[in-house]
C-alpha cells in the first residue's frame, strides 16, 4: 500500500510509515503498528484492523538531540522486559587524553531475565539507577570509566534490593555507553551488546554467556554474586554510531556490517526504528531494544590527534 511521496525527498512511502525510509524525514502520521493504516482512534484501537496500539513499555521511543532509542515488546512475549535510558551529561572534565571537553551522550540498556521474577522491574530499576549515576558522576568530573563502574555498582545494588525472601531474585543484563569527546566508553554485564558502526564496524562487548547458548554467566541480581563489569574505552578514527541493543536484535542480526548498513546515514531515531522493525520482521521472538548514539563529525573536528583505534 503506497500512500504517497515523502515531502522531503520524493521517495514513495508506505501507509503508516512514521519516517521516510530513504531520508528519515518525519512524515507526521503515526500509523497502526499492526496494519499500517493511518487510522488509529483516540482510544488507541486501529480503526481498520482493530489492533490496540502499544502503550506504556510495549513500544517506547526516546529521542534526544544527541541520541535516540526504541524498545519494543516484540511479537511473542506478552510484555516488554527490556528497559532503556538516555541522557545528555554535562561537560567531561577529563578524558583519557585529558584535553577534549563537551557534552556527552549517555545510554543504558538492560534486558530482564525472563526466568527470574519481575524481570521488567529489574531492568527498569537498573537503567534508572545507572543513568542517574552516570550523569551525576560525569557532571562531578569523574572520568567515563570510573563513572561507569560506579553506575554498575549502584544498579547492581538496586536490583539486589528488589529480591524478596523466598522467591527467585529479579535479574537483568546491563550495557551502557558514554559517548563524547573523542572517546566511547562501554560497560556491560551479561549478553546485551554495544557495537561501533562506522569505519571498521565491530562488536565492542563480549557476551557473558556460554558460547552458542543464552545461558548467562553474569547478570545483575541478588543471586548473581559479586558483579564485576567489563569496561572498555574506544577511540573511533572517524564519524559513526554507537549502538546498544538487547539480544532481541542481535539474535537476528549479529554482524556489525549488516547493522551498519541499516543504521548509518539516518537520524538516530529512524535508525533505531529500522533496526527494531528488522527484528520484528525477522520474527520478533524476544523483546527488542535499540539505542543509537551518533559519534559525530563535530566531535571529530575537535580532535587534533588521531588516536589508536583501541586503548585497552
Amino acid at each position, binding site marked *: 500500500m503506497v500512500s504517497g511521496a515523502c515531502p522531503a525527498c520524493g521517495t514513495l512511502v508506505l501507509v503508516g510509515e512514521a519516517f521516510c525510509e530513504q531520508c528519515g524525514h518525519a512524515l507526521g502520521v503515526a500509523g497502526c503498528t*499492526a*496494519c499500517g493504516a493511518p487510522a488509529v482512534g483516540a482510544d488507541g*484501537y*486501529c*480503526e*481498520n*484492523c*482493530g*489492533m*490496540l496500539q502499544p502503550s506504556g513499555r510495549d513500544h517506547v521511543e526516546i529521542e534526544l538531540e544527541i541520541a535516540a532509542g526504541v524498545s519494543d*515488546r516484540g*511479537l*511473542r*512475549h*506478552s*510484555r516488554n522486559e527490556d528497559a532503556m535510558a538516555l541522557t545528555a551529561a554535562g561537560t567531561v572534565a577529563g578524558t583519557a587524553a585529558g584535553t577534549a571537553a563537551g557534552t556527552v551522550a549517555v545510554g543504558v540498556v538492560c534486558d530482564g531475565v525472563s526466568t527470574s521474577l519481575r524481570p521488567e522491574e529489574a531492568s527498569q530499576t537498573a537503567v534508572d539507577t545507572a543513568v542517574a549515576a552516570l550523569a551525576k558522576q560525569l557532571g562531578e568530573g569523574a572520568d567515563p570509566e570510573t563513572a561507569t563502574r560506579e553506575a554498575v555498582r549502584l544498579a547492581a545494588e538496586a536490583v539486589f534490593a528488589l529480591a524478596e525472601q523466598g522467591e527467585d531474585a529479579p535479574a537483568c543484563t546491563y550495557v551502557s555507553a558514554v559517548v563524547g569527546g573523542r572517546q566511547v566508553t562501554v560497560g556491560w554485564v551479561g549478553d546485551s551488546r554495544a557495537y561501533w558502526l562506522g569505519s571498521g564496524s565491530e562488536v565492542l562487548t563480549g557476551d557473558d554467556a556460554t558460547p552458542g547458548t543464552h545461558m548467562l554467566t553474569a547478570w545483575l541480581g541478588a543471586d548473581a554474586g559479586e558483579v564485576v563489569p567489563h569496561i572498555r574505552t574506544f577511540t573511533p578514527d572517524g564519524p559513526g554510531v554507537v549502538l546498544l541493543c538487547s539480544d532481541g536484535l542481535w539474535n537476528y542480526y549479529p554482524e556489525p556490517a549488516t547493522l551498519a548498513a541499516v543504521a548509518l546515514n539516518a537520524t538516530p531515531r529512524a535508525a533505531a526504528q529500522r533496526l527494531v522493525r528488522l527484528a520484528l520482521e525477522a520474527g520478533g521472538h524476544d523483546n527488542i531494544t535499540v539505542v543509537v548514539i551518533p559519534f559525530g563529525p563535530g566531535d571529530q573536528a575537535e580532535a587534533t590527534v588521531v588516536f589508536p583505534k583501541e586503548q585497552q
Partner: protein
Amino acid sequence: MTDFTMRVDQNKYLPAGSGEVHAIVTVEASGPIERAPTAEAAEIIIVDTSGSMSYDKIAEARKAARAAIDTLRDGVHFAVVAGNHEAQIVFPDRAALVPATPESRNAAREAVTRLVADGGTAMGRWLRRAADLFSDFQQAYPGAIKHAILLTDGKNEHEKAPEFAANLAYCTGKFVCDCRGVGVDWVVAELREIASTLLGSVMDIRRPEDLEADFRAMTQAAMGKTVADVALRLWTPRAAKLNFVKQVSPTLEDLTGRRTEVDALTGDYPTGAWGGESREYHINVRVPAGNVGQEMRAGLVRLVLPGTGEVLAKGNILAQWSDDPVQSTRINPRVAHYTGQQELASLIQEGLQARNDGDLDTATARLGKARGIAEKAGNEETAKLLDKVIEVDPDTGTARLRRDVDKADEIALDTRSVRTVRMRKDPEA
C-alpha cells in the same frame, strides 16, 4: 429523555491461534418515570374479520380493539383496519391517521362495534394498508413511534406466498408490529415471520376473553416507547468475519441478515422503538489470530439513531491473546447462558416439527433434552409447557411423548420457545 447504557460481557482472552469471539451486549434504556407526552406516536389496530372469526371471537376482538383505543394517549394518531381477503379502514372514514381525542375515540369505538366476520385471510394486504397509512403520517412526523397490533385466528390462506413476501418486504422498516394469534387454527411460523420482520412480538391468546387485557397491555407498552427507529451499529475489523448478531433477550431474534451497510466495516441492525427496557444481544465475530499479548478491538457496538447519527450508547468487544490456558478457556457465564437459551429454542422447534412429521424418536430426543435445559437454566414457564407435551421419568430420566396433547399447549410451547429468561444469578454482580 431516555438514557441508554451498554455493557459487554465476554471472556476477551483467546488462546494463540484462535480468533473466535463471543460477547453478550446488554442495552438498558431507562425511560422517564412519567410517560413522555412529547413523543409523537401512531398506532394502527388490525383486526382479523375473516369468516372464521364469527361468534365469540369477533365479539371479543371488538372488545379488545375498544380496550386498545381507550388506552391511546390523547394526540396519538391512530386508525383501525379490518382484514379479511382484503383490508378495509374502518376508522377513520378516510385513508389517514387521526389524533386521539375523546370524540375520535368514541367514533372509533362505534366503528369497531360494527365489525362483522366474513371472507378470507390475506395478512400481507392488511399490513400493506397499514404501511401506507404510516408512510403518509411519517411525512409530517419524522422520528415518531409507529406501532401496529395485528390480531388473527387463522392461516394466511388467500394470498399467494410471493405476494405475501412482497407485501411484507414493502412494510419492512416502516413500523413495528406485535402479532397475536387467538384460538388454535393460526400458524405460529406465519406470525413469527411477520413479527420478526417488523421487529415485534408474537403471543398466543388461548381464550378470546383474554384478548381485551392483552390489547390494553400491548397498547400501554407501545405508549411507553420514547425513541423510534433505533439501530445497533456494529463495526468489525477489516479482516474479520461477522458470524452472527442475535437478540437473545427478551426474545430470540436473529438479526444477522438484517444488516444495512454503513461503510465497508460497519453495518446497522434495526431494533425498532425503545421505552424503559433492557435487551441483550449475542455477537459472534471471527478475527484473524493475533500474537500472545496483543489486544484487538473485535467489535465496536453503538446504539444509534441512523437518521441523525446520534450515538446513544457504545461498547467494545475485545480479543486478547494469552498463553495462559486458565484465562483463555474460561467461558463467560452470560455467553454460556444465552448459548443454552438458543439451544433450548432450537430443540423445542425441531422437536415439535419432528413430532408433526411423525418422527417420534427425534421428537422425543429433542424435547427430552429441552426439558433438561429448561429446568437447569430456570425456564420455568417453558418447563411447564414441555411437561404438557413430554413426560420425563424423574428417576430414570427417560422421556416419553404424551399421547394426547392440547393443540393450544403445543402452540403456546412453539410461540414461547423464543422467549428467554435472564440469568438466575449474575456471578459478576
